[in-house]
């Protein structure tokens, strides 16, 4: 059941605009003239196979890579070349693929790391994260390594929320998780979206992702080959064959 229109007044311009960026690792081109837009209050999903460039796109938006061509605008301002920590402070965050929690540190320490740049308000954010994820409060003194896959994903999301972001980027949230847990995670993302967070996620599991998103883009070998509303993509025969197959 695809959610309705974006919450709140439609903005005059996008929260995040990625305009024809190209990124290469040495000789290997990872992204070529890729363009993606995310408006406030939306859930946008990037679909594509392994190696299509989804992670590169998210990381470039975060600031880990600098595009060789094209531009990225966040809240109206250009951010190509801006270092990651500054972008995080400005309201972008990334929940990396494979959870990316610090396995040897406690749940609480992991969460506090998320608030590294805003430690004064950490208590407030911590309370909110504990409300949404009571299991994290229960396990707050446990070493992250002892958490289950689903709990680690929650921890990673919770940590991202500690920086009170405006845009939450999630890289492959369903990877390595059991189907039931994947449902939980997507429910969480939907809940966060209702609370006001804009979400940009990448997924190989196109089916579940498109059912909870507003719009989507299809990435193939570094270029955007298709874009549209979630419904359009779900019903597109090409997408069905390539990504929604049995």
């Amino acid at each position: 059941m695809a959610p309705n229109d974006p919450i709140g007044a439609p903005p005059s311009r996008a929260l995040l605009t990625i305009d024809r960026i190209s990124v290469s690792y040495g000789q290997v081109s990872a992204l070529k003239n890729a363009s993606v837009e995310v408006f406030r209050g939306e859930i946008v999903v990037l679909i594509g196979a392994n190696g299509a460039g989804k992670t590169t796109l998210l990381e470039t938006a975060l600031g880990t890579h600098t595009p060789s061509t094209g531009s990225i605008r966040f809240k109206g301002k250009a951010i190509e070349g801006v270092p990651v920590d500054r972008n995080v402070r400005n309201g972008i965050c990334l929940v990396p693929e494979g959870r990316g929690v610090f396995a040897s540190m406690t749940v609480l320490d992991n969460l506090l790391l998320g608030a590294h740049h805003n430690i004064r308000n950490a208590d407030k954010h911590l309370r909110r994260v504990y409300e949404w994820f009571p299991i994290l409060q229960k396990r707050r003194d446990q070493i992250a390594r002892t958490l289950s896959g689903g709990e680690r994903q929650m921890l990673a999301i919770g940590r991202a929320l500690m920086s009170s972001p405006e845009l939450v980027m999630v890289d492959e949230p369903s990877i390595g998780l059991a189907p039931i847990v994947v449902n939980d995670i997507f429910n969480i993302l939907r809940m966060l979206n209702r609370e006001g967070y804009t979400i940009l996620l990448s997924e190989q599991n196109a089916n579940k992702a498109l059912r909870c998103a507003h719009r989507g883009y299809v990435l193939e070998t570094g270029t955007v080959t298709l874009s549209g509303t979630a419904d359009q993509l779900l019903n597109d025969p090409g997408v069905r064959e390539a990504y929604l197959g049995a």
Partner: protein
Amino acid sequence: MEVFIAQVINGLALGSIYVLLVTGFNLLLLVAMIIHFAYPQVVVFSMYIIWLVLGLTGNNLLLGALAGIASSILLNLISAPLFQKVMEKRAEVDINTTMVLSMGIGMIITDVLSHGFNKGHPIAFPETLAGGEAILRVGLISVLPGQVFSLVVGVVAVSSFFLLLYKTRPGRAFRAIAEDPNGARLVGIPLLRTGLESYALSGLLGGIIALLLSVLLGSASPGLGEQVAHKVLAVSIIAGLGNLVGGLVVGLFLGILEAIVQGYISGTWSNVIAFVVMLVIILAKPNGLFGLKL
């Protein structure tokens, strides 16, 4: 029995200095991601600065201590860009190059000390530093106030450091980078600035170590840096590179071992025995007793 107790106190004082050295070394290894062979030489250089300032100010201990700490921090911060430059050059960070670079730094420091200070003769710290009257005296062994001071400050410094590491914001950032530099970057931790902070912090530790060594040993020589360096490096290998708690255990063990042997056999041989024990352990387990972190 009293000899034993006295030497255990000495051993703990010496051991806590080793622990501080290993910790400073590990900090640079984990957060700045360099191997700094010459870290103990930086410490010895600071001892010379302390000696110099003490001589110039009529044994003003506070000024001497501050000068030692300042010189240690400064030397570290100056060498930071060199290390950074060397690391950039490689596609993957080749930590061995930082090792060689630090050896170059060590060469320079040791030779400068041999040439520029006191004409290369060993320097002696004023006896008032260690405290005149012995607190505890058993035969030829005595425990001076200076040694107790060294032990107390050492313990306080080590505990404070671990407290910082596990209970504060900068400590969290250090641990995050130590575990996963890429993950830390994605969370928005500024790698470069935090790396520099670790240079400064281990510089601070180095200055404290210099002060404690001055009190405990009462003298220094250009060769002291190398000797201490080899012991500290051996300790960090045995404990496992980057293993902070392991460093704590092994450092204390070495200090106590040395002191006890010193209590019963003459000085040079205690060193050799310590080295032989460490050599055997390293040969048996080149990856460290508790496993390699790198």
